[in-house]
């Protein structure tokens, strides 16, 4: 009995990982020939992640250390323009901070916030979706109705509202400490619905399949069936939605930081940099806006292309 149980459980898992792996490898090979843009996007996304992880070692200047700032170097244009300096490849801002270093640290903040937010949203969405799909009935109806109401509101409005309320609720001295977690939670709460709906739909379909019935007959605990048998089989669409969700979260975070209600100025993200640069757009220091903006678009674009590619490769039935 115990043998049969492990055999079935293990069988599903290996089949799943081997299958997914095969699809990924084959899709990757096809795409390499078919679309060089995807390869560039993959490299770019990978590059941004590496940059984010190793930011303190890669950045030429430490922008968070006020002691290294030199006001004499303020508002220096990029190196190829007159007045540029090789020490500041992309120029400096009004405080003499190096733009390139600012962008590297900013991308780190952006990726951290959006990555953690989407991870939380995926966990929450998957849990709710599995629960609704398995239990059905009234709890399912209530949760899905909530999801539907939330879906009729644009995500950006929900994030603004939760973030605004969160900031009002915590005291002023806590603001700078609490701003990032509040922002992460707000973005996560605006993203869980799509994942929950997808997971619910697919787990309802999987629930009646023979391998699940077999597992139930064997007396395996429902939680184990959900996590070890059903989840691996419905994970592909979740992966796609989560990847595209990261691109969306990056834009949402940047937008909020640009509006001045996102991350605090002490921990600048790409959106904060653009917000500062915006004040100098009219006086002609365009590099303070254009370079962080370019980095932001490239980051979001590469993640979007990777998400699209994952969708084509895994070909899950997305609505």
């Amino acid at each position, binding site marked *: 009995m115990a043998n049969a149980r492990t055999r079935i459980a293990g069988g599903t898992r290996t089949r799943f990982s081997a299958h997914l792996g095969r699809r990924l490898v084959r899709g990757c090979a096809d795409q390499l020939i078919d679309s060089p843009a995807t390869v560039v996007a993959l490299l770019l996304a990978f590059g941004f992640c590496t940059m984010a992880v190793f930011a303190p070692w890669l950045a030429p200047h430490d922008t968070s250390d006020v002691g290294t700032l030199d006001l004499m170097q303020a508002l220096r244009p990029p190196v190829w323009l007159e007045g540029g300096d090789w020490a500041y490849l992309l120029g400096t801002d009004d405080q003499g901070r190096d733009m390139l270093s600012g962008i590297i640290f900013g991308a780190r903040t952006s990726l951290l916030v959006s990555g953690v937010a989407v991870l939380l949203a995926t966990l929450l969405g998957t849990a709710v979706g599995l629960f609704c799909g398995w239990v059905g009935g009234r709890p399912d109806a209530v949760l899905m109705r909530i999801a539907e109401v939330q879906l*009729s*509101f644009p995500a950006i*409005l929900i994030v603004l509202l939760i973030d*605004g309320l969160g900031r009002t609720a915590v005291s002023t001295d806590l603001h700078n400490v609490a701003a990032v977690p509040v922002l992460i939670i707000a973005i996560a709460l605006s993203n869980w619905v799509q994942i929950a*709906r997808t997971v619910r739909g697919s787990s309802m379909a999987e629930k009646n399949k023979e391998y699940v019935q077999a597992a139930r007959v064997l007396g395996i605990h429902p939680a184990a069936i959900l996590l070890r048998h059903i989840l691996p089989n419905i994970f592909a669409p979740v992966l796609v939605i989560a990847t595209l969700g990261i691109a969306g979260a990056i834009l949402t975070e940047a937008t909020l930081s640009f509006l*001045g209600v996102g991350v605090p100025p002490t921990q600048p993200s790409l959106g904060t940099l653009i917000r500062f640069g915006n004040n100098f757009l009219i006086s002609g220091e365009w590099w303070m*806006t254009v370079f962080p903006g370019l980095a932001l678009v490239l980051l979001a*674009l590469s993640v979007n*292309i990777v998400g699209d590619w994952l969708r084509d490769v895994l070909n899950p039935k997305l609505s």
Partner: protein
Amino acid sequence: MLAFVAQRIAQTGLVMLTVAFVAFAMFHFIGDPINNMVSQDATAEQREQVRRHLGLDDPFPLQFAYFISNAVHGDFGVSYRLSLPVGALIAERLPATLELVFVAASIALLVGMPLGVYTGLYRRGVVSRLLLGLTLVGISLPTFLTGLILILIFSLWLGWLPSFGRGEVVDLGIWSTGFLTASGRRALVLPSITLALFQLALITRLVRAGMLEVLGSDYIRFARARGLPNRLVLFGHALKNTLVPVMTNVGLQIGALIAFAIITETVFQWPGMGLLFLQAIRFADIPVMAAYLMLTALLFGVINLAVDLLYGAIDPRVRGESSHHKGS
């Protein structure tokens, strides 16, 4: 059909009530409104008196009922920050936002839908692939950055169009419009393109995806097998069936325009509701936040209801049971 309409209206009403409750709860659970009304050295007795006078010691459901009844009459209280009635503040800002959203929605729909149909029909063509790549850039460009880039190019470098404000407006009693003056129309160009671009790209992709799904279905293949002319197959069968399920999504996107107007209005200093709401968030001006929230919920409700009714009128299958096709 009548039952379908009634069900839809009831559902919208329920959503409105939920939003009203959230808005009301904001007052109740965040800070004590009395603090905003009495002087700092007021005694506990004076506070209690104000509380009784305002009915803040009434039971929660009764207060909620008062709140709803006031809101229905357009009374949303007084702004903490500006000390002006919120209803009047919003009424003054509403035309600016609605005009901006209307123009942006027209651009997004009139350009996005044909592009979606085109890229769906000729999906292997060079132009289609180029357009599809551009839509990917479009959904990777945050609205505020689009605005800044347009300002940089068309206002600062070329000097063709204004970078902020509404230009001259004509006052028509309760409505102030920028449509009637040349400077008002010029001022609309950059903000409306900024607001439309993201949704335009999204609508193109949605329509294209819907088109591809329909073109791959059996009845299209049968229609072709029957030897129907290509034109008839595409425009008689495919297009109509694509537009039906895509409509709900497009409706949601139009609703999203109202939310994204917050960002566009900030970039262009457009004197609309979104700018008001953002300032309210910064200053924790809860009456303004609550009123904005309920008003936008009403607008979303009306848009979704209109789409649903249109949907019900076109597709007889949905009249019985509520059916939504939402997603990316």
